[in-house]
């Protein structure tokens, strides 16, 4: 069984034109499933691309098992240890499911044909596509293409698995199946999943990292993130003003996150409440775009 990779990021910064995508991110990942949570444009994808060696940070350092992502000599060795699902995985439309994974397995140095075949079938079985080996990727649903992307990331049982919004476009059953797989992989790999879905983060991760405007504003277990809103969530009969966030519930009342008025009955916060509280109140210094 693999040993999970140890990832250290220190002061990672990246700018795309006038946009500061990452502004000095510090992270330590050591096994288990970590979720990068944040609104669109928070820098989740850029951070994953930096970890995946697809993008070079402008500043800072990323070490994977002590190997430096910025060093050419270390990069190939890091790539032998990682699996990466980009945000929008694309495949040649005429290629079959088998051909896609087989091709990427070759690039991952699985050169022996018999062993490669076993590995290709194994990863496709893991994502439930082993009955569609000959299907062309153009004929796959969006969810199936996403699962194909996950399959190629699993080739070689990587010790560092980076999944950029893997649950997007999956139906509830597929999503549940993916959750189980990701949770299982956390035992032998360091898994980093980016999402903007709080229920996904709560369901699969041991650690949640909240990114806002390219900076880390929370690191901890999901319960700790939920606890950030403790004493700040209540249900009101009408829409309040001057609160962090409120939304209408099916029964016509409003769930409210903010500083509560005196005497209001409070409710147990969820991870989503904690996340919204954090977004509404945290403004990391020096990260304005």
């Amino acid at each position, binding site marked *: 069984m693999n040993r999970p990779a140890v990832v250290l990021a220190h002061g990672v910064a990246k700018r795309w034109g006038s946009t500061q995508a990452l502004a000095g991110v510090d992270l330590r990942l050591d096994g288990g499933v970590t979720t990068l949570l944040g609104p669109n444009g928070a820098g989740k994808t850029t951070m994953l691309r930096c970890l995946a060696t*697809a*993008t070079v940070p402008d500043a800072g350092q990323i070490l994977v098992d002590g190997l430096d992502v910025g060093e050419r000599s270390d990069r190939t060795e890091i790539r032998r240890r990682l699996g990466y*699902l980009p945000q929008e995985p*694309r495949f040649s439309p005429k*290629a079959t499911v088998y051909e896609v994974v087989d091709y990427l397995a*070759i690039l991952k140095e699985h050169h022996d044909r*018999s062993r490669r075949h076993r590995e290709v079938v194994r990863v496709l079985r893991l994502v439930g596509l082993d009955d569609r080996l000959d299907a062309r990727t153009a004929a796959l649903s969006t969810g199936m293409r996403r699962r194909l992307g996950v399959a190629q990331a699993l080739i070689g049982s990587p010790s560092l698995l980076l999944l950029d919004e893997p649950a997007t476009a999956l139906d509830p059953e597929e999503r549940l199946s993916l959750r189980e797989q990701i949770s299982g992989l956390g035992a032998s790999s360091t898994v980093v999943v980016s999402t903007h879905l709080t229920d996904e983060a709560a369901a699969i991760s041991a650690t949640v990292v909240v990114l806002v405007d390219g900076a880390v504003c929370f690191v901890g277990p999901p319960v700790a993130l939920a606890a950030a809103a403790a004493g700040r969530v209540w249900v009101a009969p009408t829409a309040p003003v001057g609160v962090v966030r409120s939304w209408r519930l099916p029964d016509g009342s409003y769930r409210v996150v903010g500083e509560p008025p005196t005497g209001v009955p409070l409710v147990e916060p969820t991870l989503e409440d904690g996340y919204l509280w954090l977004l509404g109140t945290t403004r990391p210094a020096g990260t304005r775009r």
Partner: protein
Amino acid sequence: MSVDLDLIHRYRRSTLTRDELVKVELELQRSPAWRSALNDTVDAHRLGATWAAVEGSLDAPTPSRLERAATRLGAPQHLTRIMGATPNLRRAWMVSAVVLLLFGLAVSNGERETATIALFLSIAPLVPVFGVGLVYGPGADPAHEMATVTPMGGLRLVVLRTLMALLTSLVVVGIAAVLVEERSILIAAWLLPAVALSAATLAVSSFVPIRNAAAGVAAGWLTLVVIWARIADDGVAAFRLPGQLVAAVALAVSVAVIAARRDAFSRAVSTT
């Protein structure tokens, strides 16, 4: 009938007589004890490996003619698969083959021989340039981002695909050269410029997208050839010895730039 182990062993070694073979086959069909005895004589590890190989062959993509030809010539199977998995590579070959063969046929009976050769020599080196431009980057390979972050990604994959495009183009242009009715050594003068321009395309692509690089190098090359021809009042001036020396220098500079800029090939161009 009780199991005859001697027959079983000889069955495995294929040394039975015809009658014995029929007898054993019948027993294997109807008797679990005979089948079990046969199973016991089989090396499970070897059987598993054989079965895996059979499954692998059945599931694996059918190699294209080019893949099969390359494998027969001794290329490793995994490299020929990369070749086959690059659709634009096939397209590049097809286009270059058709264009050059038609060109070769069209000029093969030309009356103005020098002009014919000059035209051929000017265009021939551009075939691998466009081949190189077609086989790398997100436009050529939809899985570019995933491919780049593999151990074989980056410069290794770029060079591999470039060599594939280059070698194939050289073969195609070589065939076209035979069709040109000129038998002087000059007809081979496109070879070094072709390699130099391909390397230059790669070098420039470390700064700009590869298709822009290919277009820029092609435009620069044609401009150079025309200006040189005008100044020297010789249509093939760029292909004589000084021109070959310039090509050699350009090749060396391009290789140096590629080596110095190799990190640029290691970054995936985001498709999102």
